[in-house]
């Protein structure tokens, strides 16, 4: 029903086509991307009651939501929280006016959900990560340690780094999914990586 490129190439080409172009040309490209955005079409379909369209959005955006949550909450909790975020999005999608802004809107829901999680955890008592969910596959010790260091970085860096290093998304993909400007993502990636190298005690490459 909807022609959406699974690997996001067609969509990302539109979104990142403005790089290196004059501002006017870039904004025109952004407008075109918005008009032609497959996300907008999917969102409109969901508003019309098409559940398959929402499943498609879930397929496209689940890695982004997973990465955003993983940058903030324990690994064992992320799976359930991803489900929560998509349920909230499904219930509130009728209030979203601009379908092309779905990614940024969903990212905001995920960040808010992570904050809610910590608020509730403070009200009760937060269990250690390995005790909280013994059934979930515990990350390797080194991976957990690196993830802990990434979580210690400022918000903008840790989210971008998790999406790049854990979820395997490229910079342009991150920009397209989260609604952030590609230049901001590029800066965050490089500065974040520099900080991470410093914290891990690895020398700066070149």
């Amino acid at each position, binding site marked *: 029903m909807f022609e959406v490129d699974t690997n996001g190439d067609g969509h990302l080409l539109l979104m990142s086509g403005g790089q290196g172009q004059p501002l006017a040309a870039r904004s025109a490209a952004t407008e075109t991307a918005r008009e032609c955005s497959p996300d907008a079409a999917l969102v409109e379909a969901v508003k019309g009651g098409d*559940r398959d369209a929402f499943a498609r959005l879930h397929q496209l955006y689940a890695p982004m939501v*997973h990465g955003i949550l993983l940058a903030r909450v324990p690994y064992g909790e992320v799976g359930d929280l991803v489900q929560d975020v998509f*349920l909230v999005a499904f219930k509130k999608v*009728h209030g979203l006016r601009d379908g092309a802004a779905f990614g940024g809107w969903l990212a905001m829901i995920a960040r808010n959900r992570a904050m809610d999680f910590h608020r509730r955890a403070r009200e009760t008592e937060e269990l250690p990560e390995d005790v909280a969910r013994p059934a979930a596959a515990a*990350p390797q010790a080194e*991976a957990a340690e*690196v993830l802990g260091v990434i979580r210690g970085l400022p918000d903008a860096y840790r989210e971008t780094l998790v999406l790049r290093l854990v*979820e*395997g998304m490229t910079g342009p993909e991150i920009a397209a999914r989260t609604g952030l400007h590609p230049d901001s993502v590029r800066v965050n990636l490089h500065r974040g990586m520099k900080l991470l190298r410093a914290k891990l005690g690895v020398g700066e490459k070149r």
Partner: protein
Amino acid sequence: MSDYLWDKSGEPDAEVERLEQLLGPLRHQPRELQLPREDESPAPPAARFLFRWPALAVAAALILMTLVGVWRGLMNNSDASSAEVAGVMRETPPRPVSSGPTAPQGPDQVEINVGSNVGRSDAPESTLATSPPRHTRKQHRRTRQHRLTEQAVPVNRERQEIAAEMLEARRAKEQLMLALHVASAKFNLAERKAPGLADVSPATGQ
């Protein structure tokens, strides 16, 4: 700075590759999205309002009925109190001025003050006994109509009542003085007839 971190192009960065391999297992594992049932699909806001409007209508009707009830109750109370005052004033006409000696003050004479005692909880029983019985709604309506015509009368009536009260009080005083004179004269006469009587103690009789 390599492009590998940005879009995985160019010469691979060994450190980034190592981190990707280390953190890769934490990546999002596709999971089936559990959406609410078809009948629980989110309805657009307009539909939600349409779904809720019968409940809103019932709530509005209940509130309206309550307000009307309270308003009518207040109106009836004010009618009843005004009718009570009017009834008392009708049932206590100004007393005719008599020139002869008056009978001792009976309980029915107290009602002259009833106008000032209306509404007080400590009003004497005699005044309560003389207050009119509870009126029906029709009687209240008639009383209300009559009240307008009676409004001019009370001023003159009050003046007459005050004059009558003062006259009565003066006569009572005269009667009391007369009674004291008579009693004093009789006492003197008795003393003259029995000269030793004054020396006898009333307690012992000796």
